[in-house]
């Protein structure tokens, strides 16, 4: 049983999805979803522990030995991502029942659960597979499922947002597969580790460079790397609440993982960072995201869109760490996969509760008026998670910022330090607007009082508590990220 963990973690949610469609009972759908989510958390924690104590795990699907068969490979980086994804899932699943019941038409609710399970399975699969084409398959599974999740949203614009997301996502996936095709052409293998070994022997570098470009742009689209982020604000704003929370916390993060895997595990990082302008490109795009997207957020009236733009900026922090490219900055990047996931997950879960109580699909700043009185716990949670976005000490966001600042200092890049701090200041401005609305504006006379239903509130507050927890106790978060960063710099090859 134990040696099959690596396969089970993907198979369980993958099997849950068709079962849900077959049974078509809303109750069963929710139970199966929750069970699959918790099982995946259990499996990934076990895998994380095994990797931490015994070293990387390799699993040959169907007993076909790599590099001929598909290899599932779990190392410090992928096990960290697995835990981050399944941790989010374990908060979203209990939340889903009440939220979906309110936001999605009755006859489509089972679809929502099924798509969520598929998406979860795909995301976990991306993190666990060691095969470039299998990775593409999982990328498409998770992406197609997330298009449907967005399309099932309660607002008229949801369909348009899903369409936009699908167009951009498909371009991204196609670019990725073109890149992988070129690599296959040059190396004759699809196994990532094998590919890395054969690449230095490839006589003609040009197709490899083209592959690098296609993969960078393709995955850049998926992870919403500025300026390829156009799909993200609409998709987040118009999706159902639970889908927004889940996608915001996981989907883009897993795409970052793919990028890390290719940059440090397939291509030669020394060549990539020394001979190509990779550093310059990533630092420039990241800084642009951190400043420009934050500024857009400051002037946004729709709260879900406000935090969606904040996500684009926060993804900038993650890619900035890749551009700075040293132990401290990569630790910052990787730990932010978790820290930002927890923070944004908490915010969108809590906003779902606000939307439900307001009885409106859209949460605007006016909707938040008087929230401190009407829904004191929700308001407190939003405040704490908001402070984590700013990076106030005692929250998860501070840990990330500390590593990124130290990393930039070690490179002697003062202007990057200044940009990180300026971006936090802009984050303070948009979080401030939310806090001011919640605490200093009188509630509208018609506004409903009372917190969100208990399971939704509990999930949101628990995730907020994690934001604070990871601000103080970092042996798992920063410790795991530091191990993964050390692994990247040693070379996954």
């Amino acid at each position, binding site marked *: 049983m134990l040696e099959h963990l690596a396969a089970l973690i993907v198979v369980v949610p993958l099997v849950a999805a068709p079962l849900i469609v077959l049974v078509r009972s809303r109750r069963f759908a929710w139970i199966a979803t929750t069970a699959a989510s918790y099982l995946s958390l259990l499996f990934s924690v076990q895998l994380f522990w095994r990797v931490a104590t015994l070293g990387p795990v390799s699993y040959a699907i169907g007993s076909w030995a790599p590099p001929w068969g598909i290899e599932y490979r779990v190392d410090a980086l992928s096990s960290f991502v697995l835990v981050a994804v399944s941790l989010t899932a374990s908060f979203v699943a209990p939340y889903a029942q009440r939220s979906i019941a309110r936001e999605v038409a009755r006859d489509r609710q089972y679809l929502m659960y099924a798509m969520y399970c598929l998406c979860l399975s795909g995301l976990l699969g991306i993190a666990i597979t060691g095969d470039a084409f299998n990775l593409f398959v999982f990328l498409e599974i998770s992406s197609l499922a997330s298009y449907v999740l967005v399309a099932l949203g309660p607002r008229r614009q949801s369909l348009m947002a899903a369409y936009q997301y699908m167009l951009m996502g498909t371009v991204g996936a196609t670019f990725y597969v073109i890149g992988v095709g070129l690599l296959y052409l040059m190396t004759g293998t699809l196994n990532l580790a094998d590919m890395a070994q054969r690449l230095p022997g490839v006589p003609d570098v040009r197709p490899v460079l083209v592959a690098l470009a296609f993969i960078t742009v393709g995955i850049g689209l998926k992870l919403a790397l500025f300026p390829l982020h156009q799909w993200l604000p609409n998709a987040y704003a118009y999706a159902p609440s639970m889908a927004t929370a889940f996608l915001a916390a996981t989907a883009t993060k897993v795409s970052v993982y793919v990028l890390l895997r290719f940059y440090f595990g397939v291509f030669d990082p020394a060549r990539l960072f020394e001979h190509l302008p990779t550093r310059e490109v990533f630092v420039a795009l990241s800084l642009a995201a951190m400043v420009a997207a934050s500024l857009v957020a400051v002037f946004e009236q729709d709260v879900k869109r406000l935090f969606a733009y904040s996500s684009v900026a926060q993804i900038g922090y993650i890619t900035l760490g890749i551009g700075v490219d040293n132990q401290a900055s990569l630790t910052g990047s990787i730990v932010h996969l978790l820290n930002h996931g927890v923070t944004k997950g908490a915010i969108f879960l809590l906003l779902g509760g606000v939307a439900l109580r307001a009885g409106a699909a859209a949460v605007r700043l006016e909707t938040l008026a008087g929230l401190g009185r009407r829904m004191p716990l929700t308001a407190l949670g939003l405040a704490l998670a908001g*402070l984590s976005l*700013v*990076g*106030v*000490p*005692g929250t998860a966001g501070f*840990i990330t*910022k*500390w590593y990124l*600042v*130290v990393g930039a*200092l*070690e490179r002697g890049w003062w202007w990057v*330090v200044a940009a990180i*701090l*300026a971006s*936090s*200041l802009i984050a*303070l401005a948009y979080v*401030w607007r939310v806090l*001011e609305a919640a*605490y*200093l504006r*009188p509630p509208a006379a018609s506004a409903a009082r009372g917190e969100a239903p208990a399971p939704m509130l509990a999930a949101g507050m628990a995730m907020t508590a994690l934001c604070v927890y990871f*601000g*103080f*106790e*970092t*042996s798992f978060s*920063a*410790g795991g990220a*530091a191990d993964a960063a050390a692994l990247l710099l040693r070379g996954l090859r």
Partner: protein
Amino acid sequence: MSLAACLIIPAAGAALIAACGRRPNVREAISLASAAATFALAVLFTPEVLRGERPRAVLGEMLPGLELVLELEPLGLLFALIASGLWFVSAVYSIGYMRGNREENQTRFYACFALAIGSALGVALAGNLLTLYLFYEALTLITWPLVTHHGDDDARRGGRTYLALLLGSSILFLLPALAITWWQAGTLDFRPGGILAGRVSGWEASGLLALYVFGIGKAALMPIHRWLPAAMVAPTPVSALLHAVAVVKAGVFAVLKVVIYVFGLEFARESFAWLPWVAGLTIVAASVVALRSDNLKRRLAYSTVSQLSYVVLAAAILTPLSVAGAALHIAAHAVGKITLFFAAGAIYTAAHKTEVSELDGIGRRMPWTLAAFGVGALSMIGLPPAAGFVSKWFIVSGALEAGQWLALGVITVSTLLNAGYFLPILYRAFFKASQGAGHGEAPATMVAALVATAALTVLMFFFADLPLALARSLR
């Protein structure tokens, strides 16, 4: 008995206060009890610290090599004694003020108040820069609901300036200062003699010092002082305890800690050359603004800005004598300024007057309040028999020893300016013809509190031994 109790008691007090919101008498009793317990705890630690021991408690490890740690040293103990002792007095005062003015949201007020003092104690007890930074930011955030207590447009504007300047300065300057210190020194601990000696060159130290003193916005060095007058929209007990004692003292306290334990008095004297100028400019400019403001609380706020820079100036002189003076001035200014604010709040509660020009003859109707105000004013000017004289004496001695003529000049000018904006108030109150009548003293708890702090101001002149002993055992 652990140091952590100093933080747990206020936090637990806040939780109980929130739970007892429906029964005001129980709520206020809890507020008084937790203040008394915190103060008693700080007193219990005093003999230990005077013996030279440094109680220490590790709360956890935040990042590899960076612990959350509490450590009690003389300066921190002095600050903790002042903050917790005056918390008790102002808890008594608040009861009269909040009820007398029929303020809303009193439960939130008392709970945030307790948490704010807890954060200030966290700053006082912080054993390294990271812990100090954590509680420093917590103090900013937890006092925001107190500043915006009234929830109107003024409060919103004031709160915006408050948060933007305090959080902005700490994010933009203090955080990189910490990161640079960590990067260069490999530690953020407070060590006698400093941690930066030999690690950074002269001009780098100068820049780092700038990041620190402007990053610690709570020290209100110009131009990062605007948050303090903005915070005056808060109810008066908040202005009195937090914006004359806990918050602003957390600022100058942090500056002192950085100067003594991060830079060290011996290291990089030349890199401090510019600091006396900025502090001196702040002292004089803020006094001039105070001279020109008619609003009593605003005048007091600018007086605070100016007095805080005395502490920074004294620290910048870098002699043991002047550093002792700086520590003493934290205590002396605290008791004096809280008396002045208490008096201003009493005048507002009893007579609903906020402007200096409205105070003609009020001394005859509120003799206790204005007498106490007089004592506080004497302390600000630095005349005997008030505590302000003692601390100024030490600062001046230190300046003479170091040959800091600039500091001497600044102190002389500012003493004249202080007299210029405090004495006319007393003249108006006691010697001008009365306008309007129909009120006496404020509620008894308020008068009792302000008389008590005035008495403390005088006592600290005659019995300066304890604060002096603590200040002397620094380094």
